């Protein structure tokens, strides 16, 4: 195994073409904050993408940012924050999950992994904010997808399939994301003491109201502290004030709604309560399935996305994936566990995915064994 550091698109294209011709495998890496996810088959050369860094263009009024993928996420976030803007999908940093420092994640990494935070159900995921990209395909050819404007339906929406593809389709060399204004103010609220079933009802009630929350999460009872069902309101102050009343009215059947500090969203971002867990699952579910899912597995967990996302500490693949499967969910293995990363797909869908991967990478050079099903 060796490490390549191509300096430009031409060198990257040549490296990929040569690998395809020689039957070698390549694993793309920038910050490395997610390098521990998946099998380490050791059959691939590493492509260190760090030369592809830097801001290309940022026009706050157009709500568009073009950047090279190995630019640190922290740098991107600082740049747009100076204009009171943000990445709408609230990417978080996997570094701390693996005991590393935060700040190593790159913008390309969070897009390629499709990482989105607590606002995901309300403002969309990485897929919804990637507008365009340049990349080198598995054939070693440079190509573009999407464009650099916020509204575009010209040709296939390739940015959607590139976001969350985990480096298995092409090597990104430039990407354009949509940015959003930072909400002027944020207030957070909690109802304490609900069980998961009641918490789901409360979150569903609120999301069906005009409270217009940008966060709905659940922290179960732990170490004697009662459970908290938490909500986030963002916007201009008069709007938050009006919607606070709506929120309280929606939650009237569930108990008192108290204003709390915003630390809870940091907890959802760093998953601090699950830090000691050797095995970590990320379970994506229809929110309706949330209570039934967590009640089946006696493990520590946190829930976000109105119940649509459960972070589960520990548990063997069979019971976790079995429970998820039964409830129309998918369990992705993030840390430890000795099982494939992705939830197995139905055979028909797996074949279709395989054909789409070959459309970008005919020789399978980005199939490094990292995400193999066995």
């Amino acid at each position, binding site marked *: 195994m060796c490490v390549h550091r191509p300096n430009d698109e031409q060198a990257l294209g040549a490296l990929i073409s040569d690998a395809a011709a020689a039957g070698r495998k390549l694993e793309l890496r920038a910050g490395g904050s997610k390098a521990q996810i998946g099998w380490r088959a050791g059959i691939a050369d590493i492509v260190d993408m760090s030369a592809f860094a830097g801001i290309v263009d940022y026009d706050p009024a157009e709500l568009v940012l073009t950047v090279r993928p190995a630019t640190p996420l922290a740098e991107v976030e600082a740049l747009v924050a100076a204009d009171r803007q943000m990445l709408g999908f609230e990417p978080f940093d996997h570094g701390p999950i693996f005991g590393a420092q935060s700040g190593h994640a790159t913008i390309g990494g969070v897009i390629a992994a499709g990482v989105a935070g607590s606002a995901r159900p309300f403002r969309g995921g990485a897929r919804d904010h990637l507008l365009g990209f340049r990349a080198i395909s598995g054939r070693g050819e440079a190509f573009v997808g999407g464009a650099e404007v916020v509204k575009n*339906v010209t040709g296939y929406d390739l940015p959607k399939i590139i976001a969350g593809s985990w480096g298995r389709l092409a090597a990104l060399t430039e990407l354009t994301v949509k940015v959003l204004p930072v909400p002027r103010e944020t207030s957070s609220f909690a109802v304490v003491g609900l069980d998961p079933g009641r918490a789901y009802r409360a979150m569903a009630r609120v999301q069906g109201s005009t409270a217009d929350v940008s966060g709905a999460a659940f922290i179960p009872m732990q170490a004697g502290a009662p459970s908290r069902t938490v909500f986030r309101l963002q916007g201009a102050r008069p709007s938050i004030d009006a919607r606070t009343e709506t929120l309280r009215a929606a939650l009237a059947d569930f108990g008192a709604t108290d204003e709390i500090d915003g630390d809870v969203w940091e907890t959802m971002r760093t998953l601090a309560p699950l830090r000691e867990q050797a095995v970590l699952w990320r379970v994506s579910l229809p929110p309706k399935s949330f209570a039934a899912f967590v009640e089946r597995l006696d493990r520590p967990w946190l829930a976000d996305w109105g119940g649509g996302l459960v972070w589960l500490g520990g548990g063997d693949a069979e019971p976790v994936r079995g429970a998820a499967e039964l409830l129309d969910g998918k369990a992705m293995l993030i840390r430890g566990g000795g099982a494939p990363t992705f939830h197995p797909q139905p055979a028909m869908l797996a074949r279709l995915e395989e054909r789409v991967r070959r459309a970008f990478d005919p020789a399978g050079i980005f199939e490094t064994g990292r995400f193999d099903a066995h």
Partner: protein
Amino acid sequence: MTLKMPEPKPDILARRAEIVAALRAIVPGEGVIDDLDGRRAYESDALTAYRQIPLVVVLPDTKEQVAAILVWCRDAGVRVVPRGSGTSLSGGALPLEDGVLLGLSKLNRILEIDYDDRVAIVQPGVTNLAITRAVEDRGFYYAPDPSSQIACSIGGNVAENSGGVHCLKYGLTTNNVLAVELVTIDGEIVRIGGRALDPGGLDLLGLIVGSEGLLGVVTEVTVRLLATPETAKALLMGFATVQGAGQAVAEIIAAGIIPAGMEMMDRPAIHCAEAFVRVGYPLDVDALLIVELDGPEAECTYLADEVAAIARRNGATTLRASRDEQERVAFWAGRKAAFPATGQLAPDYYCMDGTIPRRRLPEVLQRMDRMSDDFGLKVANVFHAGDGNLHPLILYDANIPGQLERAEAFGSAILRLCVEVGGVLTGEHGVGVEKRDLMPEMFSENDLAQQQRVKCAFDPDLLLNPGKVFPTLHRCAELGRVHVHRGQVPHPDLPRF
């Protein structure tokens, strides 16, 4: 018709009776339309400049029938053109002489509404507006609102990734669809996506939405429902210059305000609309801006004051805020009537759909003015100002020989201009046949070849909606083999249909 479509296959034309019989065996009763008058009803979509009577029309009742039709067509080598309500403005449902027109209009049931998780599962023939109608009593709606929403189907919306005036805040179809059931050309019925968000695995759903009927046939759609905002308030503002209006838009966004809708009209569009509906638009301005805010009353009032201050700072000469729902609707009436209103100036109009970076708007309008003189055709502009989506309406008279061709040439020149300033060929209407031959303005051979390889992963025999989107459809085996270097096409002699 100046458009070149794929050459009809003589053997398929000769086998018409056999094909009709085979489809009748799959869809009994009146679901197969064979007579000329019946087929003529399907000869075009909303891009009426192009017409073609299809080989045969089939209207299945079930997804199993859809699957059986596709398998039969694959085995027989027959091309298939899927169609929803036929409201495409880019010719996405233009039939083929040797193709089966597969209409999804009978698959028109709402299958499930889940108010707790706020999703609806509907068949593709359900109209966009019918979804909102079904849930509005409970305080919900489906956000994307293309202006044809009373007629257009959700299946068509998925195919075209349709937008609407509210998509700056609420997104396009792709941001509001959670799952589809797709029938492949092999007759496989596959569920793509689901109620679980970002579940891992490739986002095939994102690829299907906006694929213009080239990858498969959608037989079921799961959409997100949103709580209907409590109030909406519109501001109507006139500006002496387009620059002033453009600067106001930029400052509204810079202030952190994302309005529900933000529409601009130029002088010809204002005059046309006002003469048509008489809603009190100012006539002494070069640009009219309608900004709509939605949410709690307190929020709308607060932000409306800020928007008004920004507008005044940028030279707004007239400024009115809607005092009630009736007035809000009146403000929009002119904008919504802008297209038919052009009928006063010319019998026909050709609606373009480019997107540009907003800051380039004044320059683009000036250059369009000059082109208008060059082509000898008038143009009126309506503009989704928030997201840069420009709809120039080219006015012409199809009965005057040469005018349609000039309108087409003018339209192409406008779209080239959009790409030149950093924009795109289509913001919400789709490529279809209309912008197909302009795709190389925006994409290199490599880019298009990569998109075509995706097409080949779903439809290796190129039977689904050929002649749309791609200016040249390479055979899949060739794409797999051939490398394109430095923009050189390996087979320059390959026919462009």
